[in-house]
């Protein structure tokens, strides 16, 4: 069997194990939080009797391990269960939200990844020039600000002052693709500013690292142009770390954008997860957590596979 396939199979197996451990951790974590769904939903209105009725109906009075096993049993049959809070199927709650989250992440990635790699190559090419310093300074400043701050600045400038883009990105199914893209310009720009620095710096560092290798010196000695040396000789060899950092940032774009979603009232997974944790809606928290974890596992796996494919030495090990 090709070593690549063995690796993929091994990693998938480990991934499933990781997901199971995560599901246990999430369950225990939410259990440890004070209060349960009945108390959180009723809030100040809770009386001992209504809380007890709530628990009876939703089977919250069963011991934790019984509830966990029941949930796991459902999951193995492909059933994510129903939300405890409003009884709706979780697949229905999560489906379109996850699609929205992916839509925002993909739109951002399409903009951010090429820009950061391009800037990274340029910065490596003109290392220590004024351009390199400027670009590093600019991207490092945007990454240093909290994402909500970047978002508010963009809203204040581009939405409130110049009236160019909407400040609220509440996309809904009735909108056309173009309307949706217009609605998400600001969150997309915010996230781009937040992720560019990381990927751009990594690209720059990886290329610079390669530039000190003997074969690059050879290329220079052959009289090749600097740009050609960097793009054709150095960059392909620097791909592996770049792919890894891109994967990490893509995972962040899917799982880590709760605050940006709140600032722009964007209907993604983030708000669902926050609300469900607040109300102790454990099945929804479990499902969302698993989806986020699966995203990380999958993207990491893909990054490794692509690293191997991009590197002949790993592709055919001796």
């Amino acid at each position: 069997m090709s070593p690549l396939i063995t690796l993929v199979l091994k990693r998938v197996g480990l991934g499933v194990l990781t997901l199971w451990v995560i599901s246990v951790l999430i369950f225990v974590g939410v259990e440890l939080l004070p209060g349960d769904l009945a108390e959180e939903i009723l809030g100040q209105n809770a009386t001992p009797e209504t809380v007890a009725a709530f628990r009876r109906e939703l089977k919250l009075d069963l011991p934790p391990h019984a509830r966990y096993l029941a949930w796991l049993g459902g999951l193995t049959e492909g059933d994510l269960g129903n939300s405890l809070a409003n009884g709706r199927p979780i697949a229905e709650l999560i489906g379109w939200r996850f699609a929205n989250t992916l839509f925002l992440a993909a739109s951002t990635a399409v903009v951010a990844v090429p820009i950061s790699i391009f800037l990274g190559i340029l910065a490596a090419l003109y290392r220590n020039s004024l351009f390199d310093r400027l670009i590093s300074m600019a991207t490092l400043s945007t990454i240093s600000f909290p994402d909500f701050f970047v978002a508010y600045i963009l809203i204040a400038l581009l939405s409130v002052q110049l009236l160019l883009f909407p400040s609220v990105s509440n996309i809904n199914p009735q909108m056309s693709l173009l309307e949706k893209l217009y609605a998400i310009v600001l969150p997309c720009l915010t996230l781009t500013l937040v992720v560019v620095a990381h990927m751009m710096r990594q690209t720059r560092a990886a290329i610079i690292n390669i530039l000190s290798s003997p074969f690059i010196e050879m290329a220079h000695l052959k009289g090749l142009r600097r740009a050609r040396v960097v793009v054709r000789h150095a960059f392909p060899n620097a791909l592996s770390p770049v792919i890894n950092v891109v994967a990490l940032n893509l995972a962040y774009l899917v799982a880590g954008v709760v605050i940006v979603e709140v600032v722009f009232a964007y209907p993604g997974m983030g708000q669902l997860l926050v609300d469900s944790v607040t109300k102790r809606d454990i099945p929804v928290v479990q499902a969302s957590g698993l989806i986020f974890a699966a995203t990380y596992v999958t993207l990491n796996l893909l990054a490794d596979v692509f690293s191997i494919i991009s590197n002949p030495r790993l592709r055919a090990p001796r």
Partner: protein
Amino acid sequence: MTSLEKVEELLEQGKITRRRFLAQASALGVGAALSPMLFGGKAQAAAPKRGGRLRLGLAGGSTTDSLDPATITDMMVQVINQGQIRNNLVEIDADIRPVPELAESWEPSKDAMQWVFKLRKGVEFHNGKTLDADDVIYSINHHRGKDTKSGAKGIVEAIKDIKKDGKHTVIFTLSGGNADFPFILSDYHLSISPAGSNFLDGVGTGGYILKDFEPGVRAFAVRNPNYFKSDRAWFDEVEIIGIADVNARTNALKTGQIDVMNRCELKTVLLLKRIKGIQVMQQNGFKHYTFAMRCDTAPYDKNDLRLALKYAVDREQMVKTILRGYGEVGNDHPIGSANRYHAAELEQRRYDPDKASFHLKKAGVGNITFDLSAAEAAFVGAVDAAVLYKESAARAGITINVVREPNDGYWSNVWMKKPWCAVYWGGRPTEDMMFSTAYAADADWNDTFWKNERFNELLVAARAELDEKKRRQMYVEMQSLVRDDGGVVVPMFVADLAAASDKIAHGKLGVNWELDGMRCSERWWFV
């Protein structure tokens, strides 16, 4: 349609003149001030007209929300439930009076223990069913009984029996007399759905039909062409967008993406007021913040100590800094100036370090530190308010230690558990509801664990008293009992602040709940 509504409609259609309208209205025995069409502020001047899509950007929505009236807790679904899809038997008008909604009229027995409600005839649900007594009984029973999950269980507990008498009469028998019973039926939980309904499909009798609802995110409703009120529900469509972040709401209003926002930020509302094309709406209602002491726990079981702490708080300063002036000082009882029987004659308690230290000495508890539990979950600014309290008390020689509690689980782990803590109260439209909910000896939420014999006697007597004057006397005495003996410090009543584009017009605002008693969707219109 009442006769007044009829002449109002004629006026609106230009079929009669204003002079004639006035004559007709006074012939009907109603003051012209009742009609928002004639007088009032800028926004109230024009006659209501149909059309447009109202876009509400609201805080108070959660993805865990449900349309079931039993578990409704916050603004987004409340606005859908009241003024959009459903109606109650009784509505509270802008002057905090109960007026008929799905009920046509009602009549109490002499002891106010039996109430006969006549239902409006020919009212249709969105699914075409005609409203009758069975629907009412089914909807109210949803909140009664052993297995109910309803937050309204406490308030309908006094209903001993509901039965129908023909298709359009419902008879409520109470376990004790209650002159305010119509107010209870106006509670937002007690909205009416068709019999047999699962309460989740959103079918009601309301002015709008729900087309699309994604909890916490968006709701979209269109006008109900068969609505039984002809002078309500002016918009063609109403869209609610859940926007939890206050800055996002403000920006959306400024950039014209929404027409109305609720819960303005106190810090920036001044800036909002300066923007052209935006109106800020302030409602001084029943909402108040308290610091509840457990009277069953030492040292708070001594009234002198409680008085010492009541004199040690600087109310004016709290209203000025915590509420930025958008509120009123409280007088250590939960009845605000918007309530019918508010005791304006009671002397306002003021910050008095001398009296505070006098009562502290008299209590004889020695030099101890009082732990005051607070968290932002109690109310916005609770921790700051507690720190202010600590500072003002220090000048009276009282040591307060502010304990910052976690927001998460505040209502289950701190409130009614810790001996002294910050509390939020939405308030109630009647004195009886407020006192029975949180001050009666056996109330589930008697968060001060206060048991005053005279107070509890008066509570039962006043509830059944149909004579206005005697009732008023009793409620005044009860307010003074809470003020001088109770375990609660009520430093402030807080106003609701909403903002809207000035294209929105409205009559006098109902202060019983946010956004015109939650009924902005059916009461407001576009100029």
